[in-house]
Structure formats: C-alpha cells, structure tokens
C-alpha cells in the first residue's frame, strides 16, 4: 500500500486512490516497425530489483497520469513527475544517483 505524491494535486495519495499503469517511458512502435521493435514495445519489460520507473494514474482524484521512480526492493520513492515527458527529469536522476550510486535503468543512469 504505497503512498505517492501526485505532481498535479500536490498531495500524498494513498494507493487506493491510484491505478497502476506499468513501466514508464515506453516508445511506441506502429506500422512499419520491425518484429523486434514491436515485440520490445508491446511485451518486453524491465522488472528490476531496485530502481524502477513506472506509470500511475490518480484515478480517484484528478485523473492525471504521472510517473514515479522507486526502489522495488525497499519501496523507497525517489520522486514523481508529470507523464508528459520522454525521460526522467535531470534533477530526479541526480537524486537517485546520490542514493543509489551507479544505478542504471534501460538507457538512463
């Protein structure tokens, strides 16, 4: 039962207010993409032990989608940010580096 801060409402949300949306920062591949590209987009997920970026929706609140960076082992939440971006904000990446030196997740580190 996580608590995540909704970056739109600015409030700490109980997990019962939220809907999970799986992994964040996927790149969509449509018609014209190769089988490997499409498979990667549709099915391949990180499932890491440690730093992870995921999508959440404040479904029983403002209805907005946002991203959360957290540690899947310790449940530590590094930060949340609006979903209208293709990569984690630099400041958040710095915060994670301070807490988890040498972390990497997909192409980010």
């Amino acid at each position, binding site marked *: 039962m996580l608590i995540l801060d909704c970056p739109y409402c600015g409030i700490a949300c109980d997990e019962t207010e939220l809907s999970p949306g799986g992994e964040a920062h996927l790149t969509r*591949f*449509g018609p014209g993409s190769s089988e490997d590209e499409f498979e990667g987009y549709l099915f391949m997920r990180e499932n890491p032990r440690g730093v992870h970026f995921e999508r959440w929706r404040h479904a029983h609140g403002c209805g907005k*989608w946002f991203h959360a960076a957290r540690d899947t082992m310790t*449940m*530590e939440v590094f930060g949340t940010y609006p979903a209208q971006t293709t990569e984690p904000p630099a400041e958040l990446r710095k915060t994670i580096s301070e*807490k988890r030196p040498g972390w990497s997740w997909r192409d980010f580190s």
Partner: protein
Amino acid sequence: MSHRLSTGGRLIDRSERRSFRFNGKTMTGFAGDTLAAALLGSGQTLVGRSFKYHRPRGIVTSGGEEPNALMNLGTAKTFEPNARATTTELFDGLTAESQNHWPSLEFDVGEINAKLSRFLPAGFYYKTFLWPRAFWKHVYEPVIRASAGLGKAPRHRDADHYEYMHVTTDVLVVGGGIAGLTAAKAAAVSGAEVMLVEQTANWGGRAPVDGAVIDGQPAEDWVAATVAELEAMPNVRLRTRAMGAGVYDHGYSLVYERLTDHAPDPSRPRHRLWKVRAGRIVTATGSIERPLSFAGNDLPGVMLAAAVRDYVVNYGVAPGKRTVVVTNNDDGYRTALALKEAGLEVPVVLDARKQATGPLADAAREAGIRVAAGRGIAKVTGKGKVEVVHICDQAGAGAVVEEVRADCVAMSGGWSPVVHLWSHCGGKLTWDDENACFRPDPDRAPTGADGTPFVAAAGAANGAVTTAEVLADAWAAGGGSGEAPKADAEDRQPMMPVWAMPAQAPYALRAKSWLDFQNDVKVTDVELAAREGFQSVEHTKRYTTLGMATDQGKLSNINGLAVLARELGEDIPAVGTTTFRPPYTPISMGAIGGEARGELFQPVRRTPIHDWHEENGAHWEPVGHWRRPYAFPKEGESTHDAVTREVRATRERVGLLDASTLGKLIVKGPDAGRFLDMLYTNMMSTLPVGKCRYGLMCTENGFLTDDGVVARLSDDAWLCHTTTGGADRIHAHMEEWLQTEWWDWKVYVANVTEQYAQVAVVGPKAREVLQALGGDMDLSKEALPFMQWAEGRIGDFDARVFRISFSGELSYEVAVPASQGRAFWDALLDAGRKHSITPYGTEALHVMRAEKGFIMIGDETDGTVIPQDLGLNWAISKKKEDYLGKRAQERDHMTDPLRWKLVGLETLDGSVIPDGAYAAEEGLNLNGQRKTEGRVTSTYYSPTLDRGIAMGLVERGPDRMGEVIDFPLIGGGSVKAKIVSPVFYDPDGEKQNV
C-alpha cells in the same frame, strides 16, 4: 485433574458467575475468565481431537498461539468455527463444541488412525495420490475428508455486522505489555499522535504474572498508573481487544478489534477493522514460549510452563494437582514457585541444563521444591491424560531413571520473540545464539517511502529478556528522551537449547514427540522429509504440513527448523524461517468485508427509467454496475415466452428499449478527428456533421475491445457511443493516450453517459409513435435518413435523435436530458398505446441483433479476437497509415488463413446449440483430446425464424459455406449445424432503411 482454586485470580471476579455450555454440558466460570480458563476450572482437560490421528488433546497455552483448543462457537447465524478457547472471553450463555471428533469427544473412532500412524507419514497425501491412481478418488480421499479437518464451515448467513475505521497516526504501537506501554509513553510525551493496541482485554502482558517490579512498584500498579497517564493525554488513542494483524508498505497497517465477542450485542458491530497509516510502527508483541520435544508431549495436561502459571495467577485455576516442571531456562522456576505458592504440588523441576544455579533455582529449592539438574523427560504416559512422567538423563538415550506420578507437565523450551509484524513488510531476522531464537535485525528493518526504517521492534519482541532490558529497549524504540522506566538488573543463568529430549532419543521416542500439535507433525516426519530431499524449509513445511493451519506454527516453527537443520547437518540460521504473512492470527471474513455486504456490496447504477422497470416486473440482469431489464414477463408468463413476445411485438409493431446505459463520450477539440482516427479502426475525421458511423476500437495488441456508433456533432466535436460496460474503461483509455502519448494534441474528452436518458423506439410503427408526440422535428425518411442524427423537440422534450438500428428494424434512438427521461418514457408509452407498444429487455435486444448478425462485445469477442476474424474488414480503413492495433494485426499469427472466423450456424434439426459448444473434427490433439475446429459464440431461439440460430468462430469458416459440422453435447450425442451467413434476417437491410 484441573480445578478452580479457592482463592486467587487477578483477572476474575468471583462475585459474577457465568454459565456456558460445552458439548451440550452446562458449566460455570467467572467474569474475566477465558473459555479455556473456565474449562480447566471445570475439570475439562480434554478439549479436542488432533487433525490426523484423532489423538486426545488438551489446552497447551493461554493465548493466541493455541494449537489445540479450537472450538465451534455459537449456533446457526452466529456460528463460528476454529475459535481458540484461550482468546475467547467467557460470557453468560456461550455455547462451544469441540471439533474433529466423531462420534464424541471421549470416544472417537478416528483414533484408529493413530494405530495406523506408520502408514500416515509425512507427505502421505502426495504418496497416496500416486498409486494406484483410482484409489485416490474412491478410497483415500473420501476417508481423509471424513476423518480429517478442523471446524465446520458455517451454513447460515452471518447475522452480525462489521465495520472499517480509517485513521492516520504518527506512531502505532502494537502490544500493550510493559514494552508497548513504555514505547507509547515515550512517543506520546514527545508530542506524537499515538495509537496503542492490545490484543487481549487487559493491559500489562506477562509482567504482572511474572512479578516484575518497575520504578519500585509492582508491575500491576505501574501498568495501571501508566495506562491512566496515557488515557489522560489527548494525543493518545488506546484500544484493547485490538490485534495488530498486519504491517504493509509505507506504514499501512491493519488492526483487528473485537468489539462484542465478549458481550454479544446485535446492535453493535462485532468486529472493526482499523486501516491505519502510521508514520512509525513499534512492534511490542512480546515472545512465545516453545514446547519441548519429548515423547508423549501432546497428552492433555502437558502445557507450556508460562501458561500454567497464567492460569494459576490470572484465573485462580490449577491445570493439575501435581505438576512436573521441565525446563531449559530460568523461566520454568517461576511456574514452579507460582504453583507452590498456590498450594499445589510440584514433585520435581527437571532442569535440562547440567547445573541448576542462580536466584530462581535457589528460590525454588528454598520453597522446598526438588530440583533435578541435567534431567529430562523420556516419555509421558497415561490414558488420554498425563499419569506418569518417566525421567531420564537429558544427555542420554532415554533410559528411565525414575517414574513420577503427575497430572500436569509444565514445559519451557525457551522463548521466541514474536517477529511476525516486523517481518511482514521485509524486516529481516538475525539468529541470537545466547537465547537460541530469531530476533529482528536492526540493520535490516522494513523501510518506508523515504528509505528509512519505519518499523522498530521493542522489548521481548526485539529479543530483550529481563524487565530492565525490556524497558530500556522499548523507551528507545518509542523515541523517548529523558528518563526511562527502570527495573533492577537480574542475575540470569544462560538457557541451553534443547531440540530433542533426551538428546539421543531413539526412533521410538522421536516418533511420539510432537512438533506441531495442530497438524500432527512429529519429529520423525520432519526427519523423513529431510531424508526424502526436502532441504528448503518452505518445501518441508508444505510436505509435512508443519506450521500450517490456523496457528501457522507459532509453537512449532523453531523446533521444526532445528530438527530439519540437524538432519541436514546445517546451522539453524542457514536453514532460515518460512515466510511470515499477515494476519498474525486469523481474522474474521466479516471484518475483511466490513460494511460491503448486501445492498452496500456494490452500489447499483440506475437509469432515469429504473423505477419504471422495477414497478413493471423487470427480470433483472447485471450489466457492468448497472441493472438492466432482461425481459418484462407478465403475470404467469415465463421469461422465455416474454422474450419471444417482445421480439415479435417489436418486429411486427413497435418496441421500446431503455438504452440509457450505453456509454456517451464527447470528444472535442482541434485535434479530435485525428485522435479518433487513431482510436477507431475506420476513419472518423471524414464523417460529415450530422452523420453517424459504426466504429471499432482495438488495443495495441490488435484485439477488439469496444464498438459503437459515433456521431459528428460539430466541426470539432464527436459523440462516441460505447458498450454499456465500456464507458468508464474507454474514457480512461482515451485519457491515457491523450495524456501519455499525444499530450500535445488539443483534445478534450467528457464522459456524459449519465447526463442523458436514451430510449430506442424500434419497429415498423416507430415513426408513427414519435410523430404522434408532436414537436418541431421532421422524422421522415427524406429529412432524417438512416445513419443520420438531428436535434429538436419531440413533444415537450429536448431531443437528439439518431437513426441507428441494432435490431434491423426502423429505429430511432432518442437522447433527452436525464431529468426528462422518465417523463419521455411515459409519453412514449402513451403515444404508442394504440400500437400496443412493448417495452423489451436485453435478451430481446440480443436475439434481434443475432438475427441480424451483429456482433456483441464479450460474446463474439473475448480478448483474443481481432476485427478481421469477425468479417468486419469493411470497418477497417485501408487508407490510414496508423491506428491502435494496426501493427499488431499485421503479425503472422493474426493473418494466418487458418484463424477461426465468424459464420452463422443453422442446426439441421432446428434446435438451439448449447452456448459455448465446440465443433469437433476427426483426430486427436497432442493431449489426446478430440481436435476442435470452432466454437459457438452466440446462440438463441429465434422467434422470427422459429428455430435455433447461432454465430460461431470456425476455422476458415467463410470459405466453407454450406458445410455441416458437428457439435458434441455434454452427456453424449451431438448437434449438426450447417455453416451459413451470420445474417439470418433481412440481409439487404430493407427494413431499417425505410
């Protein structure tokens, strides 16, 4: 024999007698008793039969860890199985029955199982399962089912009610012993909001029984003063009869409060489940004494030493007249002293340690109690109860040196901290060599959202042993500054781990030494599991059932682990523990459900016309969160006949359908057309204003997920109809893509499903009925042709009229503001009276759409079906470069010519094929089953054609028109059906386009 003492009992009120029934016999106890205390006080030492061997069993403990004394409580609507007598408070009129006995507790035929015990070893379920195969079903399973098992499942609806309570607090302290009180006080004086919960009815835990002295006062007085002090503080909330059941991520915790179990009152909730969000959680949950593994340790009368003194001190109940104490640590002496003080006989204290020294052993000797060091129990014998204790050298192989007559054995194998709540959310344990126990590892605590620990264990739950250690540890865990409560240091002698008694016990003794009383697991069972290759403790648990069922091994786990470790030649910490999972002890299903029962289970969504349906005998069908009328059977009419009548009336004259539940989403903005082109498989941006178009929506995986008619309202706005169950889901689907992929597109989506009532007026007379209402709209074929919509007034109503049809008839779907819905419906009934206008339900709707070959999401689709499978290629744009699902539909499996595709099915004999039937073809698949080549997706009796019709997905179906395929029936025989077009009625659409 157990009996009530004439004096003593700090928790009972001898002036208040309480009468109760056990197995039909009336007994009495006192206010403040637990059922277990009252049973023992009434001389009832035999309280149940064991799970597997039906051995006679007695009360072992005085608390929530009790494995044996499980009761069926109450009757009929208040019946509850598996209640522990040790945690059941006595009240007048309580009825209890022992479990797992047949025909009676005293005479049980299942005892024969005990004689067969060598044929019922660890894993015997699995072994009997293997061979001979037929024996499992016809011999073993019926016998096991009849003779094994715990309580009976209740057969009546629960008469009690339950509730939730949500609370946030800075600190939650679980456990109201001296550690919990100290931690709560430490946190409270610092100004924190504190919630302190205690699972029993009484504060103070063990300390008052064990004679602790705190800050110069007897523990009892210190506890009373501290509770009074906490009660006076506005920032402290105290609850007794409230158990910390589980700890979850980020400080979430469940507390299970039993409000009326001790004093039934139907006007109050029976249980309350607290859903607590705590900044920090202190687990001051104490520790549990371990049994010793000697032969015959499951006989009624063999009890934990601390429980024996609890009964004497708390309830004035003597578990026996002559009690042998056997211990591997100092604590056993406390029991011997308490018994002696109560005037009971203690023939000997058997101290497994080589030397019996220290203040407690000395005090026992001074009290005239014989102390035998280095001794243990070879076996306890007796018929259904303790009669003779056979004493041996602990270090030996069980040669009996002395026999002592006794009716009770008090055993203490050391103490295990209650680490459950610490472990629920990832807290790790460390092995404490000195006290031979697992305790919380402070360096590996559960961590919260900020990455720092949010659970602290305190007192005995943290491995502290003496009162002074407990107080200091708990004060620190509560975050206290200043002076902690104090107690004198104690001169404590080290305990000695004893995992087998005697140490060299031969097989015959080990095979009678119980580890898990509740599941009948013996030392030899765990040894056998190890020999058979079960090296993981989790596997051993499942193979032997050690630590399963209602007590979850609270007594047995450490002893079992030790046996497994010895057998594997490993250290105990290397073997590790099984996983601790919530709840700590069982909680009621009622509490988990809370208020969500009956009408509150799931609120029903109601259309503006719902009440009319109810008043007119609707046979309801749940659809999403809605209730929709399935049909409107008249007095004496079957539902089937009603459907037939409704279909015929609609096709011949005019019918009326409440379609308000259909999803209505307005999609608006400069990029709305582009957005809808991505969502639907066909082109919506080119739809002219004033027109309607049927559209399909797919997931990115290519599968059809929803369908409906889209109307273009204006240059930049579209109204998308969704399925009844799909409105919220499709709204969320649109939001997701707009917010997370195309966030720069200017589109707004509003779900206006409940803003409108929508009524379908359907049938050849539909136009006449609407025209009779008057208004300013031209509803003629020329002014409002098929697949167009218009706005205006019909009668006095503000209407948006869609010329769309899901039945194949002339049809108008009319949306009016929700507030006008019921009046509009009534006006239509009036206007249609001369045509015998007939309201119809969802089944008539289904039948008519099937006659027309229209698909239904959820019937023809199941999450694996693409639009191409359903012959809907006409609704898939070939011009568009992209839409959701397009790429997926290009995968080779999706374009496989052998995919099952939609066809109509016409039975040769006119019968209705059973729903979900599969078409079988010749040959067997790799599993040895008949091969299949298709299945039925919709099947109905068609009143219009007076025969069975069906739709189905068939391999290469559209290429096999006219072929006959075979649908085997459950129970034998088969139905033959011809593959035909799915459109059974009016294939050219002449009737809807008039």
